């Protein structure tokens, strides 16, 4: 969050990074940098992935068996690690997504009435 010229950016809520990684990998396997890019791009650069937490998060997801890792080649023809969603991860994504929707819906309902009164 260094410069003012960039858009207003929001740091990720605790725990949501896992969800976003899973959702990104639903589109297909990707390497670390690509995942960051995708999240930032798809959120119109609003969400800022703290890159320091990306790799620990990936490792965590592998350990839980929600994603797997395979060797691949990156854009600039280098060897790279590609992360792929597993079946288990797909189920987890569905569960997490509906949980998130419930959560954001609830937050929205709480915030709405004040707006209506105005």
């Amino acid at each position, binding site marked *: 969050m*260094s410069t003012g010229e960039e858009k207003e950016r929001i740091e990720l809520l605790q725990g949501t990074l896992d969800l976003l990684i899973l959702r990104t990998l639903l589109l297909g396997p990707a*390497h*670390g*940098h690509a995942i*960051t890019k995708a999240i930032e791009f798809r959120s119109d650069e609003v969400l800022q992935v*703290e*890159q*320091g*937490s990306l*790799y*620990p998060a990936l*490792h*965590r997801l*592998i*350990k839980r068996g929600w994603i797997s*890792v395979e060797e691949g080649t*990156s*854009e*600039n023809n*280098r*060897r*790279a*690690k590609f992360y792929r969603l597993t079946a288990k991860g797909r189920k987890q994504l569905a569960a997490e997504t509906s949980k998130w929707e419930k959560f954001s819906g609830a937050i929205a309902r709480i915030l709405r009435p004040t707006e209506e009164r105005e």
Partner: protein
Amino acid sequence: MKRRGKRLLSDLDQEIREHIELATQENIERGMTAEQARYAALRKFGNVTRVKEDAREVWTKVWLEQLGQDIRFGLRQLRKSPGFTAIAILTLALGVGANAAIFSLVNTVLLQHLPMRASNRLVVIWISNLKNGWSRIGPAGQDYLDWKDQAQCFEDLFLFEHGTGTVTGGGEPEQVAGLRVTTNFAEFFGVRPLLGRYFRLDETSARHNLVVLSYAYWQRRYASSPAVLGQSMTLNGEVYTIIGVLPSDLATVFPVDVVVPFDNDWLKRADSDLGVFGRLRANVTLEQASSEMSVLMGRIARQRPDRKDYGGVLVPLESARVEYIRPALLLLLVAVGCLLLIACANVGNLLVSRAVGRRREIAARIALGAGLGRLTRQFLIESALLALAGGASGLLLALWTTYVLARFIPTRIPVPNAADYVSLPSIHISAPVLVFILLISLLTGLLFGLLPVFQTLRFDVNEVLKEAGRGSSSGPRGNRTRATLVIVESALAVVLVIGAGLMVQSFSRLLQSNPGFNSNHLLTLRIKLANDAKDSPYKEPRRQAAAFQRFLTAVQAVAGVQSAAFTEIVPLSQDDMDMAQFVIQEEPPAPRSQHLASDFRDVTPDFFHTMEIPLLHGRVFTEHDNLDSPRVVLIDETFAQRFFHDQNPLGKHVQISDSTRPPREIVGIVGAVLDTGLDQRPRPTIYLPSLQSPDQTMSLVVRTALPPSSILPAIKNAIWSVDRDQPIFNVRPMDEIISSITSAQRVAFLTLDVFAFLALALAAVGIYGVTSYAVGQRIHEIGVRMALGAQRSDILRLVIFQGMKLASVGVVIGLLASLLLTHLMTGLLFGVNATDPLTFAAVAFLLVWVALVACHIPARRALRVDPMVILRYE
């Protein structure tokens, strides 16, 4: 760590490089220079090491790895400042060691269960007659039989009687401690014999002549031979068959040599001083049982008029045993807890000071990305290392202390108001004590380890780093923490020293209290005539009296014996009690007179001279006061005051038990004697001439100019010259008797003194530490003040005032806390009030003085400051 994780982690470096590479390229595409692009990518990625560590944490029990690092780091830190480490460990060792020693004492004495089935449901049953002032006396055989018939709240009742027997045949005659028991012994306690068997329920007749040996006696007399079963031994002239051996741990309940069964007929005739234990039913409380017992005693009194006004007293066996020593031990536990807190405060103080000194190191680590959690852990680990080292040294100290304590803790302690003793198990460091040491070490580590964490981790990193090399002030928070600690420890020290001060006064007053006789150079021993034996020469009362007379004559002839006498009970000895009701013949038999009760003593004429009990009026007994002459008695002054008020008792007559007995004329009044304890009041006592009231067992009291132990062999030989089969037992100098009945106070007194001294020393060190640290911090300020013309006395006042302020607040708090706490020790105090103003004032003064000395040393150092050096340094 899993293999998969290992591979991922080893590739992580490469992966991160790749990531940054890609980001850099993108930045270049956005139009940055190569250098800018790389820098931006790196900045965006963040702390690479941290990322790697976080990823590692996913796969490993990383705390375990870091723990190892932290421990190594902690050890290095402690080695770096050996002075600090040594002082901290020593302080903790004192605290932990003292606690462990006292805990092992408490654990052995108060917390261990007796080695018996359902030992927590066993109760001792006494009877009482409060109108006569008898709070606990042993019941009669008939009481036991009535209870056994009628009481509902007990599963079972057990009856026993302590006694002594003479073992003859095969070596010297020996007086053994015997126990007569009902035959439900084995079933009642649920203990197995070590060897052989116990009595069967129907082996109640004396004809069987069966005996069970105690473990100690079996070891001593039979060298632990298993062949002992079936052998015979001669006890009181009769031949008994040995059928079993008791397990060794039963000795803490019954410290006897031999156990024989009660004869059923004999049981009905036994009229007092028996011991009865009951085992409560599982769902019956002590209160229920007690109330049933009082109803029952009322019913029994209607059938047996001699039990009128009697009640039953139920006390759990386990607590009755330790009743005497418990208050002393609990007091020590509180005291030693205070000591530990002081030790903690001191070490906490040291750590806080050190943490302030390490602020720059810590700030640097925070700036380099150390997490708060990790730093906290680091601090805790350092303090835990200290605590464990302190605990280990404390264990050594505790081993030594228990060894010393074991010499002061008596093995036999009195049972209050019951003329009885119980034996205590020997104390030792056991597994629970080790666990206790570990726990309190870690707990203290946690306690003082958190202090510096709270107070150092809240500073502003930038501020600290900017201060650079300047010897900076530590900031208000550090000072406040340290100030609080000093106040707390001075307050605790005041409490401990006041407790010790009270104990010192109490104990010296106890020892100085006049027992009514001269206790110096007195030897006592007990003799029991063997008139239980079939062919005993002492069956007839006259012959008993004559036998004691012959022993006395022989003993009086021994060189070094100044005088000697026999008495039924030695004052203060708790050997026995003899109490009865009486009527005064000259008074009308008013209903009230039924409740006149007094202690009774049969003594030989020289008793008063030997004990140096003063004769106040009339005369003492002579050798002519025998069975052929008119019955006479002496009374003590307590008796005279209580029952005769301002009348002259001389010439009046008392009838012991009731008015049908022969009247005995009061011929003299002697001084009062403390019979039951130095802290007790004298009880009304009637003395009878033993020639008119012969006994089977009497105690010899000998006054000698020589040390009692050196004259003992000659006295024994004198007795044996009269009857070479006469056993002699309970040989004790009066000093030993007095030290036994004051043992609880003695233990509390000695131990509390040591604790108080340690507390005072630790508090002084604490005050010294804080003051000298403050001087170190203000050295610059002091230099400036001196340069500006401040006098030496001003500087001295400045420094001392700072330390004394804290100490004074501590003293005031300590005095207030003592007001609340010292009443806990009221039961142990004698002749001094728990809030004795003199003690309080003296201790306050002492502590202020100690604090002054502790402040004065650093203050002197402040005076040596050379202002020029300080200013130039600036």
